[in-house]
């Protein structure tokens, strides 16, 4: 992905990041402004690692390159209930046990979490949602058509 696309995407993910970012431009502030939850730049970087573990870079872009961690943060901040936000942040804190470790260790940690774990569910659901709805995937892989202009109710497919 070229730089212009990356910047545009960041803008879209963050929805007003240029003006909304807090005035604190030290290394502590997150890339996008958050209204309800508090995260540091180090949390953001860790989240980027976690999402990259779920959707790694291969011959196509991974989560980090697609800014899916920013999308997870945005959705957590705006669309989750306060209870879920709290549970997520606690889960994120606990996950620091595997911070800086390799993808295998992180995967093993995530797999070990209970099925109903809010942190893992939110992380995974929002990462997948952000990925499938990303400009990259919708333009290059699972093509989204704004104007189909057709309808065939009985199209033959290979079984």
């Amino acid at each position, binding site marked *: 992905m070229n730089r212009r696309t990356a910047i545009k*995407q960041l803008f*879209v993910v963050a*929805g007003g990041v240029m003006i909304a970012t807090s005035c604190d431009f030290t290394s502590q502030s997150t890339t996008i402004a958050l209204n309800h939850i508090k995260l540091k730049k180090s949390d953001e970087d860790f989240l980027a690692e976690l999402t990259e*573990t*779920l*959707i*790694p870079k*291969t011959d*196509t872009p*991974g989560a980090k390159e697609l800014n899916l961690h920013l999308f997870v943060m*945005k*959705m957590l901040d*705006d*669309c*989750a*209930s306060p209870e879920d936000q709290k549970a997520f942040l606690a889960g994120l804190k606990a996950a620091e046990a595997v911070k800086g470790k390799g*993808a295998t260790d992180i*995967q093993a940690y*995530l*797999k070990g979490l209970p099925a109903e774990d809010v942190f893992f569910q939110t992380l*995974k659901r929002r990462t*997948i*949602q*952000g*990925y*499938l*709805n*990303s*400009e990259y*995937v*919708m333009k290059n*892989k*699972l093509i*989204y058509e*704004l*104007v*189909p*202009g*057709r*309808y*065939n*109710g*009985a*199209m*033959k*497919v*290979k*079984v």
Partner: protein
Amino acid sequence: MANLNIDSSKVRSYDAIVIGSGIAGGWSAKELCEKGLKTLVLERGRDVQHVKDYPTTNMYPWQFEHRNEIPFDVKQENPVVSRCYAFREDAQHFFVKDTEHPYVQEKPFDWIRGYQVGGKSLLWARQTQRWSDFDFDGPARDGFAVDWPIRYGDLKPWYDHVERFAGISGNKDGLPELPDGEFLPGFPLNIVEKYFKEQVETKYPGRKVISARCAHLSKPNQIHIDQGRVQCQNRLLCQRGCPFGGYFSSNASTLPWAAKTGNLTVRPDSVVHSILYDDEKGKAIGVKVIDRNTKEEIDFYGKLIFVNAAALNSNLILLNSKSKRFPNGLGNDSETLGKYVAFHNYSARISAEYEGLLDYKVDGKNPAGGGYIPRFRNLHKQETDFLRGYAAGFGAYRSSGSDQSGMGEDLKNSLLNPKLGNWGVGSHMMGETIPKESNYVALDETMKDDWGIPQLKISVDYDDNDAKMKKDYLDTMEEMFTAAGFINIKRNESSQAPGLDIHEMGGVRMGLDPKTSMLNKWNQVHSCPNVFVTDGSCMTSTSTQNPSLTYMAFSARAVDYAVNELKKGNI
């Protein structure tokens, strides 16, 4: 109002005033303007110009900040509108937020509103079936509500008239319970919908599955091209406003057509307070408006008043129009104003899967939404222990999905290579509810809105008839699904409040007898003949069909009558 002189009242005088710019108001305006009347349309919301004011219409999914979800805070603050299926990031700007326009729920009622030029015509689900004599003579036959003052034959030419202009897609199905119309080509059923149709029509004589009829231009005629509209592009992003004019809305169709005559004035931001009644002249003389932004009170004058504010707001305006002659609301000699409100019962659906026809899928999108099952219950005779019946939607779809259980490259590969699953099938009920005196709206004694107008108090609920009908729908559909070989059948009952169907009707009902109704057979207020009400509030009973097409027909018919009467000097 000392600053208003005679000249300024002249400036504020029109031949006709239409309250509301939605489906009914747009039609009233078009017909009035075409007949040469200088017409003022009052709209309480902001202006929305076709195409120009559809900010999301060409947006891609990734361009929505929350990928079309509504943020948690907005949902918390607006629980009612948040329950509406179409209240999403892409169309939220066309919905009224609960916090901005409060009302009193004596019983839970999800009042879904769109305050802007075009009203809910930008948002409707676009299903358009004619009513039949089974509906218009229903009350007389079954003994509920009061007799309609008209029959299908009275409305037929007006259905023809509005269908030709609006553009309705459908097939000639030859069903007396669902009369054929002036159709553009119908959108065909998909292969599983066709399969279900064959199963049902073979195994259950008298029951039909047809292509849903909808207000989309499947193949536009010259009259649609003249409106600046082109063929529906099957995008299914209608609720954002359609830049093609592919579906019918006031914004794309009737209002610009009315404007072309040079006779139309639209005044947005005009919250109607009441209709002005002159006790000496014995008729309505105009409309009192509160400017939405400045809160300024302004009177407009007109010879004809068309009340098209949408069902419950039309009730509110008439209730708030008090005079010496009408202390309990304009035209309310019968004391029925605000009463006999009814709606449609959408509280049950059923879904299943089909393992056959797996070598087919759907390509593209069907704006009609699939199939429609016309009412078959209690049609030719009363055969159940509940009154009336239900229609149903039916649709089949085949979606693809992927295993999301993994992580890393496995997950990524799985997501990028979705597999087609079984066909899914689904149906929802559209039941007729019985208008009852106890289902009413009224002005709240104490609560007022931001414009000093009393808030509407709504007291509407389901009854035993609805419960019995709902059970019959689920049992009957389950049996039909089973007979068609569908598997994993799931019955879903919703506890949704009335209102979420967005088909509220009544309160200003038509009738033969002024003692038991508000309007005569021309939608004319019995006791105030220059006021006409042609939106959902005029409905005497609710049928099982979607109501919007009937509001269009009523509006055009009433204007024709009103203008003739005006010319004859009768009103």
